[in-house]
């Protein structure tokens, strides 16, 4: 087990390389640029392909090309760049192409600032572009998971032939933690059943998202929904701590879940029965697991760096059966420990 201190953004690139990614296309944007830098440093010495694109529209379309050829490609960006990519992501979903997109969220709207936020939740988790599609969304909360989830993202992208996001934020990108390198390095094999790889075996293949015939397009859309239902059934991941006897359950992903964990530990020390529910997949949202908790008399507190985007999904997931409180900060600020503690105490009536 090789362990080193590694920065979150670097861990993403390490994960991609060990997962057999051979193409990276990206455009600079803080706080995701280090992924671009690290890719430019580590892809070429291995003969793997790195290119700084002219825009995020170009990056995502370069991804579309490499993915259509069956290669393991990824890009990384942040809010404004992700907004620009949405057309391309819709095409990826429509053409059922596997691509990994890493979003190191920053504060918006507009140019906003480069501080951390979680405000891309809706545009990433709900699809974001036009059409009835969804993306698989993985939410790491440590440097180790930045790597591990990037590797998982490639696996899922190819298993389901769909775009997969790794949704992180400026803090996770910037922080350094001990990190254990992957055990395996994957040498990918091109799937000749669908890829268009410029060879005899794939000459008859076609990648497209057009269905002129309304009935056919409806059929295709319905098939996509079946795929998403299968994904919900099999790929949902979450982590629970102290939820068994909890009266109050903090719900948070990414860096907010780390802050929530500290708050939970503090609250437990003060005798308050507080638990933590961390969705590791945001789509599929861990509905079954959260509903099992909602069967009990609990209050949920969503801890997020966005305007209730997670809280809304939580309410939807539990059909508003339990109160959902919100603790949040916007504008590049982290939720503070005091904020969460105060809310916990208010809910507990202390």
């Amino acid at each position, binding site marked *: 087990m090789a362990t080193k201190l590694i920065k979150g953004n670097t861990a993403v690139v390490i994960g991609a390389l060990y997962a057999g990614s051979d193409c990276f296309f990206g455009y600079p944007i803080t706080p995701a640029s280090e992924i671009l830098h690290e890719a430019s440093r580590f892809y070429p010495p*291995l003969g793997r392909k790195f290119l700084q694109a002219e825009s995020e529209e170009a990056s995502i379309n370069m991804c579309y090309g490499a993915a259509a050829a069956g290669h393991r490609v990824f890009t990384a960006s942040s809010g404004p760049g992700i907004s620009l990519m949405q057309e391309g992501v819709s095409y990826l979903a429509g053409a059922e192409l596997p691509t990994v997109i890493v979003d190191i969220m920053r504060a918006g709207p507009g140019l906003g600032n480069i501080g951390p936020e979680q405000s891309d939740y809706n545009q990433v988790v709900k699809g974001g572009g036009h059409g009835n599609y969804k993306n698989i969304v993985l939410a790491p909360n440590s440097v180790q998971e930045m790597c591990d989830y990037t590797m998982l993202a490639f696996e899922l992208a190819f298993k389901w032939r769909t775009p997969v996001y790794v949704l992180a934020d400026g803090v996770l990108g910037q922080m350094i933690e001990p990190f254990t390198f992957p055990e395996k390095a994957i040498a990918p094999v091109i799937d000749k059943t669908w890829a268009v*790889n410029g060879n005899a075996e794939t000459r008859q293949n076609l990648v497209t998202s057009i269905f002129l015939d309304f009935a056919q397009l409806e059929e295709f859309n319905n098939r996509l929904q079946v795929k998403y239902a299968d994904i919900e059934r099999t790929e949902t991941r979450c982590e629970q701590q102290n939820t068994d006897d909890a009266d109050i359950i903090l719900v948070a992903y990414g860096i907010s879940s780390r802050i929530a964990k500290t708050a939970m530990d503090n609250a437990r020390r003060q005798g308050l029965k507080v638990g933590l529910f961390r969705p590791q997949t945001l789509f599929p949202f861990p509905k079954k697991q959260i509903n099992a908790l909602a069967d009990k008399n609990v209050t949920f507190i969503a801890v997020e760096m966005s305007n209730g985007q997670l809280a809304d999904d939580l309410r939807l997931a539990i059909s508003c059966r339990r109160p959902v409180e919100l603790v949040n900060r916007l504008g590049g600020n982290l939720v503070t420990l*005091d904020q969460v503690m105060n809310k916990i105490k208010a809910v507990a009536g202390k």
Partner: protein
Amino acid sequence: MTEKIISSKGIYNEFPRKGRNNPAPAATHYCPGCGHGILHKLIGEALADLGLQDKTVTISPVGCAVFAYYYFDTGNIQVAHGRAPAVATGVSRATDKIVIAYQGDGDLASIGLNETLQAANRGEKIAVFFVNNTVYGMTGGQMAPTTLIGEKTVTCPDGRDPLTQGYPLHLCELIASLQAPVFVERVALSDSKNIRNARRAVRKALEVQRDGKGYTFVEVLSPCPTNLGQSAVANNDFINEQMIREYPLGNFRDRTEEAEPVVRPDSDFTRESLDTLFELDSIPPSIPHDDAADTETQVKIAGFGGQGVLSLGIMLTEAAQAASKQVSWYPSYGPEQRGGTSNCSVIISKQAIGSPVVYNPDLLVAMNRPSFERFKNDVKPGGIIMYDAQIGDVELPPGVKGVAVPAQDLAEQAGSSRAANTIMFGVMLELGITRLPEAAFARALEANFAKKPKLIPLNLKILEFARQWVKNNVR
């Protein structure tokens, strides 16, 4: 709306992709007299003659040629409006095979102009075939960047007026202003002589691709009788008499002889190469260390940019890692970094670490007064503030111990004015605040200066100097 293209090489014999209830399986979807069919035929023929079909990926744009994949007997990808050069770049970089981007004037010269110029400027190994028919065909004849002055379209019903709609865009001339392209030529499909020339140019472009030499661009002046509201004959006259005046035919660049093949390396997927790249064989074993205490140490380090605040944090993180502790380092960045001050949080623990942001430090290292004032009241009761003595007199919060370290002075005495942070590191070690073993501190210094190994002995000396200072001055 259907025209037969005489069965041709490189093109499927029948077009089943046209759909389930296709009454004319060997007829194209193009209008009678349309130039797309002719150009398809020329490209298909060249691909077949050069034996390239098994190696080629054709990209269908958005526009009337959106269904080019009905016809080309190659690998096929359909893409978003204007993005063909970017997609082609992705395919080419990934596969190093032959890639064709087939595009209309709205697609290539309007919405996709940036992708067009950038791919050309990078000299991507792609063949771009550009159909210039002066209008948006598919969407019903709107003005295109290439619409002639005075030409009427549905969005310039009185004719294109340069004062409000600008001038026709000359793509070959634009592309030929760049250095990378290998072959740039403008041809027309308006009569048999022009078609013969077009056939030659198409073939030449694909030969450049076969030889892997780089970017080729062939602009094809092409009829769209439907949207120009003309007969096929009149449309050809329009091309010959008006379009060619605006868009002269001819070669704009031919470096096919001199250009060298662009070679792309194979990807290396072996674990050995990855492990070497990340220097995994040079990871030193962890330093044995037993620390029964189960407490967590939270450290905040703050000062001006340039005082080594962030790297002091990283050294401490390295030391903790060397002793197999859980540890996290998080820098202030972005909005917090204004005014040239910076800070970082380090948490050292036996347990998994929650928030990496330190709110209430056990130890505050303040390298300047603003940092001292900003964070002093956050320090936990019983905690310690190490601050640079240059700050002068300070007022400490109750229950907090202060250690005034003349860090800058000591660093200068020890031989490096830039090593105030190493002094602080040594004081931390000697005071035992972090309970990390001595060897871990030395290891951290070595790791921190791994890229400038000459500085390691000096900094080890400075570390020792700081420890001596503590022994002599701090009780």
